[in-house]
């Protein structure tokens, strides 16, 4: 997970170099948040979402944070968007404030009140009030303390504010897991700042840097919050469980979950409140746990009421949610399941939420996996380039989620908590940063190292273990259900994955190739030579794989191939003639300016069932003067293997030793048409399908059947193109001069042989290259 975070964080990539100037510029800093802000909001959302069981708590807090003052949140949100578009200074400040606030709450709190808002605002407030009352802090206080921080930041004390707000916000930024969306949106942000002030990005980095110092504290805080969240959850669960059975109603499970979440959220927000006011970390933990538990128990009743209420009032929502609820929860599912389902379903909606990779939850690797998957899946959406919408999206996403009735909780905030937990978050990890997005995406699903790392911060948290256990009693049924939904999730993700899609495409192509070979392929895009463009297209994934990853074809001197008609003379090698196919791929990839190349294969291949058909469809043309002339007339590069069948059937011991070059047919061809001859040396094909022996193959029209490896071996291919031999000064009639033909044949042969030897000398390993 952490890995993912570091690797994905675009900020960090740029951070190191830019920090200094960034730090110096305060004004700029103010603006930075603006740009970041969208990001921050987003990923906090993502994070929160990710953080699984804990996240729920985080969510709750988020809810608490925002719901009490919808106006404020709204403002924050709107500002988020605005600065991107128009925004001069002020909005930026506002945004910053907002962000600070959000972060201050443990970076957890930005999440809009998901279901609370969805359902009933009034009850919610009441609950809030209650919670607040318990805590002894008025609901608005949260906002209040956030704003001081914000103002502080604004006022230009950007550096190492140990205060909750600043540090957490800072940590938040670097921690952003995969900020692709944010990154992409960034373009919008620069506009405002374009007016003289430095671009917003550097500032972000500056903040990050400062954040490093108070990091420990932040981490602690985050951990505490996490702990509290767990405690709250556990407590909430118990309380709700106790309460619910007494009530009438059919759908206990859903309600239970909802209620539990509500309670947990409330409890967590309370904890956060306490924490914000508190001081000593060590004591905070106990305190937090305590508070969480108490609040949870106290609010359970209210929550249950509300949930029931809500269920009653919003039947349609229920309907919507049933599907997913149904699978997610049989009576005793634990949070994880809830989360899984929830996350899953939210995916499509929550465009804004950024990839929350670092679910730091302390729970299970599974959760993280889920989340990662989730995030990953969401990525494509969030990449959408419209920066200004980021914030809006966030809000909308949340609301959408609410409308669906599906998601119980919210995604936004919790992320920060986890972030803080990660000690490594701040360390720039260049190696990871370099991972291209394409690499990142596919299976980050299983992150092995994440749990390990997480352990470190958790060690101190004994209470944590306790809470975990509290959740355990759910029993095997719950576990099983959880595993099932998890498995389903993973399967779903896998199916949607790019890699698997490619694999399926490749399989499809291979199947089609087999069908073509069998003679039932059909095919409707054939040219006169029998090449089936459709088949080649379908096989392209396979060819790409072979070319790029399996054989790692490296090409030298391809520029020697002249435009127009040209005869590429290569050594034939290997028991199965892959070389023609590879040559055509080389030319197609490296020299798209040339016309499509064809290669000539010996008659025997065409007499062979399946192989002949398949090769023909892939672009092989039977070697005959008529075909060669016609192809050259079409100004195509023509690949010929003058060794012919002899070349492809030499024993492994004689590999790369050129056989007789036929009767010089290619030279005659060149002389008649004036097409230059380009010698080509191919190394690697011999080892790809070494000829181990021969079987009598007369019944198939072959002199012998090659006995070779069952499939192509992963030898590294190197293809070198030599200087072309031009036919200038040689009249077409000299094609009848056998001496001249012989001379040119020998010249070509020697050029190829010497290139082969050079390549073989340079080659250190057959498979590694």
């Amino acid at each position, binding site marked *: 997970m952490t890995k993912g975070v570091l690797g994905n964080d675009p900020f960090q990539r740029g951070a190191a170099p830019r920090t200094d100037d960034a730090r110096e510029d305060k004004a700029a800093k103010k603006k930075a948040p603006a740009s970041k802000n969208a990001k921050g909001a987003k990923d906090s959302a993502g994070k929160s979402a990710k953080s699984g069981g804990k996240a729920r708590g985080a969510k709750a807090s988020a809810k608490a944070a925002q719901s009490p003052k919808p106006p404020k949140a709204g403002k924050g949100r709107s500002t988020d968007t605005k600065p991107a578009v128009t925004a001069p200074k002020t909005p930026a400040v506002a945004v910053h404030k907002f962000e600070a606030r959000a972060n201050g709450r443990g970076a957890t709190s930005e999440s809009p009140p998901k279901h609370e808002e969805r359902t009933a605002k009034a009850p919610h407030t009441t609950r809030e009030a209650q919670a607040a009352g318990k805590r002894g802090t008025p609901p608005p206080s949260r906002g209040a303390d956030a704003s001081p921080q914000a103002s502080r930041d604004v006022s230009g004390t950007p550096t190492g504010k140990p205060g909750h707000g600043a540090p957490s916000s800072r940590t938040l930024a670097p921690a952003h897991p995969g900020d692709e969306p944010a990154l992409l949106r960034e373009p919008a942000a620069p506009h405002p700042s374009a007016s003289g002030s430095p671009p917003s990005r550097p500032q972000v980095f500056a903040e990050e840097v400062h954040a490093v110092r108070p990091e420990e504290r932040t981490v602690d805080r985050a951990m505490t919050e996490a702990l509290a969240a767990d405690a709250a959850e556990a407590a909430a669960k118990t309380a709700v469980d106790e309460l619910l059975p007494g009530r009438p109603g059919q759908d206990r499970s859903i309600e239970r979950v909802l209620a539990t979440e509500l309670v947990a959220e409330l409890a967590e927000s309370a904890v956060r409140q306490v924490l914000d006011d508190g001081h000593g970390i060590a004591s905070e933990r106990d305190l937090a746990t305590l508070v969480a538990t108490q609040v949870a128990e106290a609010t359970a009743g209210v929550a249950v009421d509300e949930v029931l209420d809500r269920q009653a009032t919003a039947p349609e929502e229920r309907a919507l949610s049933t599907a997913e609820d149904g699978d997610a929860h049989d009576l005793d599912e634990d949070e994880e399941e809830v989360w899984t389902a929830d996350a899953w379903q939210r995916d499509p909606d929550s465009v804004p939420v950024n990839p929350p990779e670092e679910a730091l939850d302390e729970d299970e690797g599974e959760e993280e996996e889920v989340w990662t998957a989730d995030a990953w899946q969401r990525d494509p959406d969030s990449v959408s380039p419209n920066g200004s919408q980021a914030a809006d999206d966030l809000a909308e996403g949340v609301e959408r989620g609410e409308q669906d009735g599906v998601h119980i909780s919210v995604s936004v905030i919790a992320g920060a908590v986890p972030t803080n937990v990660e000690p490594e978050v701040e360390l720039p990890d260049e190696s990871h940063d370099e991972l291209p997005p394409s690499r990142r995406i596919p299976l980050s699903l299983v992150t092995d190292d994440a749990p390990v790392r997480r352990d470190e911060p958790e060690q101190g948290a004994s209470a944590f273990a306790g809470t975990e256990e509290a959740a355990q009693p759910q029993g095997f049924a719950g576990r099983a259900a959880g595993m099932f939904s998890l498995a389903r999730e993973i399967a779903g993700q896998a199916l949607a994955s790019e890699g698997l899609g490619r694999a399926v495409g490749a399989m499809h192509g291979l199947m089609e190739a087999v069908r073509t070979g069998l003679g039932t392929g059909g095919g409707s895009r*054939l040219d006169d030579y029998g090449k089936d463009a459709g088949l080649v297209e379908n096989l392209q994934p396979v060819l790409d794989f072979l070319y790029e990853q399996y054989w790692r074809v490296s090409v030298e001197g391809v520029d020697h191939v002249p435009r127009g008609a040209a005869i590429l003379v290569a050594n034939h090698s290997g028991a199965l003639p892959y070389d023609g196919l590879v040559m055509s791929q080389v030319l197609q990839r490296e020299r798209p300016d040339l016309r499509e190349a064809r290669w000539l294969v010996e008659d025997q291949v065409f007499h062979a069932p399946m192989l002949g058909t398949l090769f023909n469809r892939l672009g092989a*043309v039977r070697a005959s003067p008529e075909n060669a002339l016609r192809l050259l007339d079409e100004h195509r590069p023509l690949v010929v293997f003058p060794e012919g069948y002899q070349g492809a059937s030499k024993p492994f011991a004689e590999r790369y030793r050129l056989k007789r070059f036929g009767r010089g047919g290619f030279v005659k061809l060149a002389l008649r048409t004036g097409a230059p001859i380009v010698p080509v040396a191919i190394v690697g094909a011999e080892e790809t399908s070494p000829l181990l022996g021969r079987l009598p193959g007369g019944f198939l029209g072959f002199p012998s059947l090659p006995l070779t490896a069952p499939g192509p071996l992963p030898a590294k291919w190197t293809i070198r193109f030599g200087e072309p031999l031009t036919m200038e000064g040689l009249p077409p009639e000299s094609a009848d001069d056998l001496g001249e033909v012989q001379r040119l044949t020998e010249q070509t042969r020697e050029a190829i042989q010497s290139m082969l030897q050079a390549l073989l000398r340079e080659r250190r390993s057959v498979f590694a290259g």
Partner: protein
Amino acid sequence: MRIAVTGANGDYGKLLLPRLEADPAVESILVLDTKEPEGTRKVEFHRVDLTRYDAESELTDALTERPVDALFHLAFLFGPILNGPLAHELEVIGTMNVLTAAGRAKLPRLVVPSLTATYGARGNNPALLRENSPLFGCPHSRFVNDKVEVEGQVRAFRERHPDTHTLVLRFAPLLGRSLDNPATRLLTQAVVPTLLGFDPLWQAVHEDDAGRALHLALRAEVAGEFNIVGRGVLPLSGLIRQAGAQPLPLPGPLFRAALRALGVMGAGTLPVALLDYMHYSWVADGERAESALGFVPLHHVKDAAAALRRSQS
């Protein structure tokens, strides 16, 4: 312009006659056949049986009595040939009679249809067969080999009578709803056995294109052979699918044996010789017809096959 036509009731005749009827330049059509075609206005019917010993003099009389501007010799068999010797009589001896009469009558123009199948389906064929490629025919097929022999006669005639504009149109398999030839019979089955591991390229001509090509031959300035093919090529399996049937690949030896057995029992619907054409490609190059004859196929092979499918339903 007066036109003479033999075999007006055959597939080619059915394609050509309506076009001649519609051609205002054609004043009358002299049909030399055993049976008068129906529904025609310009036709003068002269009964001639090409298989008779006296056919040659009949033809000479008919052609010299009222001179014609062109003779379409279309009397070829495409249906299932149950009587091999009779078919040989008609195609080879009949053509000999026609050519002799044409020579005597000093015909200005002679058009004879042939098949691209006469090139033979061989593994050694070039990707595209030009008109000057040798005609290897098909070793076991009387159907094809008779056409090869006819081509030989026509070529000899052309050399002896350079004044006669002699055109040979080598048609790819004709596909159309009204036609009955080995290709249509093959493709109108529900399941078409093919050779496992082989999927040769096939061409086909839509019947409309074929009729147009014949009609174009009436005014062509050039002489010689022309490959008349549709646009594009399809692998046999694709053609079968397009025609609404299902290919069933069978291992070669088994298939061959089965076909022979069926043939011996008299139940054979497919000539064994067709196997060659399921084995290797014989793709003819229609470039010359396009440049010299002005024949541009309007229909893709796919359309031709699809037309077949429509006609089935």
